[in-house]
């Protein structure tokens, strides 16, 4: 943690125009991804995690206002001029979206989609770009690459299409890959394959990953560190291996307890009382205060700041204490 990470998100806030008024949708996100590391951003739908990922690319809806800082290799993304931003998107960061069927132009060919980034944004000649993406298609497990390149999106299955999207992202030779729920739109068996492909590509290239998901378990399995978001705020950030059983924030713990687990069959599933809030609905005080079993008066009046808890941070007035026994077992 001594060197400057590849990506640093510092007290990021995002306001969006809703019904003609600016509403704060993301309150405070703090996050760091070292070169080559994998970090998961976990949260329920509406927690602002996808918006956070898009802010890394400067890809926010028109009229959005950004506070705080998004630094890529020390350079501020929100302050990039349009031309610089375009070059940055073309070379440094690539994104894999949730629904490949919607995120790949249905009216154009697969080959066209794959080489477009190289030919239009980087000026690579079409023939060279084709050679390059054909090789990458093979790498992501599409052997009959030439035939696929001539097909149209509706002729491919969802799993294949997501591989195409990953191939397109890898073709740009980025340093950071943003994956926005890349497996949510797929069926379970394809999900594993897609995650494996991302894993292999990372290993081969030393690629950093920001993995957006609502699945804590999957996040812990794939990533080195996990950041948990609730109602537009990162409430906890911690190493993935400390997640199970030893998280500090009550929300992280509640989230874990509400998820069925193969290793814990028979255990009582507990849903979190109340309903998840969107970022702009948050009252003063702690966003999770109304649903938190540990909440006291302070939680309803003062919003907790992120503070160091062991080797992570938690934004909570009353984090779960780490018992000696637990720390001991961990070490």
């Amino acid at each position, binding site marked *: 943690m001594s060197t400057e990470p590849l990506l640093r998100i510092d007290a990021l806030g995002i306001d969006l125009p809703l019904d003609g008024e600016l509403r704060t949708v993301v309150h405070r996100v703090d996050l760091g991804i070292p070169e080559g590391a994998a970090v998961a951003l976990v949260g329920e739908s509406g927690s602002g995690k996808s918006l956070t990922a898009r802010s890394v690319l400067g890809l926010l809806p028109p009229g959005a206002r950004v506070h705080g800082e998004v630094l890529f290799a020390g350079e501020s993304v929100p302050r990039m001029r349009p031309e610089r931003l375009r070059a940055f998107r073309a070379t440094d960061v690539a994104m894999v979206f949730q629904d490949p069927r919607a995120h790949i132009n249905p009216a154009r060919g697969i080959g066209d989609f794959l080489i477009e980034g190289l030919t239009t944004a980087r000026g690579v000649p079409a023939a060279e770009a084709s050679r390059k993406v054909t090789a990458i298609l093979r790498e992501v497990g599409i052997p009959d690459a030439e035939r696929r390149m001539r097909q149209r999106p*509706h002729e491919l299955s969802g799993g294949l299409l997501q591989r195409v999207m990953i191939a397109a992202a890898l073709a740009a030779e980025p340093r950071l890959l943003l994956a926005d729920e890349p497996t949510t739109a797929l069926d379970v068996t394809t999900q594993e394959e897609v995650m494996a492909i991302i894993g292999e590509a990372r290993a081969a290239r030393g690629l950093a990953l920001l993995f957006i998901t609502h699945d804590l378990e999957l996040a812990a399995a794939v990533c080195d560190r996990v950041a948990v978001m609730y109602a537009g705020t990162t409430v906890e950030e911690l190493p993935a291996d400390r997640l199970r059983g030893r998280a500090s924030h009550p929300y992280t713990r509640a989230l874990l307890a509400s998820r069925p687990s193969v290793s814990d069959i028979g255990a009582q599933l507990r849903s979190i009382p109340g309903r998840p809030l969107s970022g702009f609905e948050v009252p003063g005080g702690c966003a999770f205060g109304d649903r938190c079993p540990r909440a006291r008066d302070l939680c309803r009046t003062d919003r907790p700041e992120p503070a160091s808890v062991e080797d992570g941070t938690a934004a909570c007035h009353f984090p779960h204490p780490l018992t000696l026994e637990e720390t001991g077992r961990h070490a």
Partner: protein
Amino acid sequence: MSPRFAATRLAMLVVTVLVSSLAIHGAMFLTPGDPATLLVGGSRNPDPAVLAQIHRAYHLDDPFLQGYWHWLGDCLRGDFGKSLVYRDSVADLIGDRAGTTLALVLYASVLVLAAGTVIGTVAALRGGRTETLATTVTAGAMAVPTFVMAVLLIWLFAVKLPWFPVYGSGEGFTGTLTHLTLPAAALAMTWIGYVAQVTRTAVRAEMRSEHVETARSRGVPERTVIRRHVLHNASGPVFAVSGVGIAGIIATAAVAEQAFGTGGLGALMIEAAAKQDMAVVQAVSLIFVVVFVLINTAVDLISTALDPRAAQKEAR
């Protein structure tokens, strides 16, 4: 597009033309009197010898379907019979006027395609006040009926500002162009509004679509995004509605021709209907219906062939 879809669509075209022609031919038998009186132009006391001749020429005494078959065969050979009102062969009457109507329809179609798509695209891309203005103006253009638009244009651009002539169809290219400008504009206005609104909606939808976000996320230049993704994808619905518009222009050409005195096929048909000159009405309405159906079918086939998503829907 599957060959099956094309075959079904073409079969429907043939059936529609057959049924329509049957209706066009059969209509005259609905008259309480002798259908032959309609073929001499509804005159009240026609010469019995002439009526007998008409009965023979139009096979009116044959069984209905046989008579229809004769008539259709003659029409297909370009023999539409004789008009006793105009004292000329119907084919000649049509030949004299078809050019004007063709020019008018083409002119109006060009206006619809050019103005409609440009207004819609600019409105969607600019947004803000431009979009509000364009939406309001095009909604207005859509609400004004063609014949009211015609008198409005005559008043504004032939009387108040004497820029355009009103009567006739003009000589030579520029003459035709100036004479047909107002009728074409009146005819096109509704569909300019329609095409502009569809274009605006389609371009807006594509601008917000996920695949455009993907292209932007990869650093594709904005102009390229708009050309390769937004306009390319929006062209499907725009093409389809333009085709419907052109078919609609053909169906209403008569109104503009009548309003501006642009003696074309439509005006001929209406004049003939007023004089109950059935031979002419049958021939011209058959031509209009066939062209109308042909264009609708062509648009359907082409837009299905162009759009893979339509092909997907069709497969389901």
